[in-house]
C-alpha cells in the first residue's frame, strides 16, 4: 500500500475508532448505572398459592400446586408485555436477589411456558413454597409480584395410589 493510500484511509479509520469507542462507552455507562431494568407492576397485582393451603398436611409426595394471579397477566418467558409475567416456584429457599434473573435449579422452578399449575414431588417432611413472578427475562417486577411463603407437611402416601 502506498503512503498516499494510507493517508486517504486515515479519516475513515478515525471515524470507525470513534464509533467503536462511543459504543463501548455507552455500554459501560448503562451496565454501571442500571443493571438489568425491572419491569413495573401495578400495586394491586396479587399472586397466591391456590393449593395447597398454608399449614396443610399433604398425604402424598406427588403434590399439585396451582398458582393464583389477580390483576396481572401470565405470559411465556421471552415475552415483554406490560403487566404480565411468568411464575417461579421457590421450594425450601428464601427470596433470591430481586434485581437479577431468578436462578434455575431444583429450588427455583421456572414455568416459562406460562403454566398456571404444576405437580411437584417432595420427600416426606416440612417444606416451604413461595411463588415469585418475573418478566420475560426472568427478572422480578418492581414492586415484586410474589405470594406469601407457605409451609406444608408432606406425609408418605398410604398404600393406595396418590391422588
Amino acid at each position, binding site marked *: 500500500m502506498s503512503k498516499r493510500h494510507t493517508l486517504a484511509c486515515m479519516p475513515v479509520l478515525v471515524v470507525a475508532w470513534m464509533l467503536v469507542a462511543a459504543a463501548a462507552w455507552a455500554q459501560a455507562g448503562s451496565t454501571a448505572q442500571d443493571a438489568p431494568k425491572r419491569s413495573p407492576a401495578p400495586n394491586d397485582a396479587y399472586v397466591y398459592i391456590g393449593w395447597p393451603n398454608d399449614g396443610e398436611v399433604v398425604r402424598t409426595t406427588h403434590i399439585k400446586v396451582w398458582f393464583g394471579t389477580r390483576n396481572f397477566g*401470565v405470559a*411465556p418467558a421471552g*415475552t415483554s408485555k406490560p403487566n404480565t409475567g411468568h411464575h417461579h416456584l421457590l421450594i425450601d429457599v428464601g427470596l433470591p436477589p430481586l434485581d437479577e434473573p431468578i436462578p434455575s435449579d431444583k429450588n427455583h422452578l421456572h414455568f416459562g*411456558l406460562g403454566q*398456571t*399449575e404444576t405437580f411437584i414431588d417432595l420427600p416426606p417432611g416440612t417444606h416451604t413454597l413461595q411463588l415469585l413472578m418475573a418478566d420475560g427475562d426472568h427478572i422480578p417486577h418492581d414492586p415484586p409480584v410474589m405470594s406469601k411463603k407457605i409451609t406444608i407437611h408432606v406425609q408418605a402416601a398410604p398404600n393406595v395410589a396418590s391422588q
Partner: protein
Amino acid sequence: MQTSGLLTACLAGLAMMGPALADNKPMPDNARVYIIWPADGQVIAGGKFWIRMGLSNAGIAPAGIEKQYTGHHHLLVDTDLPPLDDVIPNDKNHLHFGLGQTEARIELPPGRHTLQLLLADDGHVPHKPPLYSTKITIVVPPSTSREGSTQ
C-alpha cells in the same frame, strides 16, 4: 402404522378440501381447561365473584403472542360454544382475557347463569383439539337485602 398413515392422508385431504376451515393450532392431548371456582351449582349471593380459570399441561400467553401449546382464556356466559374453527366473538357473552388473566371479577344479575371456558390461540381461534371446560350453572338469588360480595 398403516392406519395412522391412512388417517394422516385423509386428514390432509380434508384440510385441502375445506378452504373455509381455519388452521387450528395444536394442543397436547392431555391439556385440559377447567373452572376452579365457582363449583357447578354454586349459589352466589350478590352475584359478584372472582372466577378462577384452570389450565393443565399447557401455558397461558396473551393475545397476539404466538407460542406453541399456549393460549388465552375466554369465558362464555349464558351461551353455547361458538364455532370452533373461527375467531371467538367478542361481546358480553364471550369475555376475552387477552392479557393472559387467569382470574376475573364477574357480576351477574339474579337468576341462573351458565359459565364455560374456552381457550384460544394468539388470534382468538380455538385449538385442535379444542380446549373447553364443562359448562357449569350458578345461581344468583334474588337480592332480599343489601348484601356484599361472597369473595
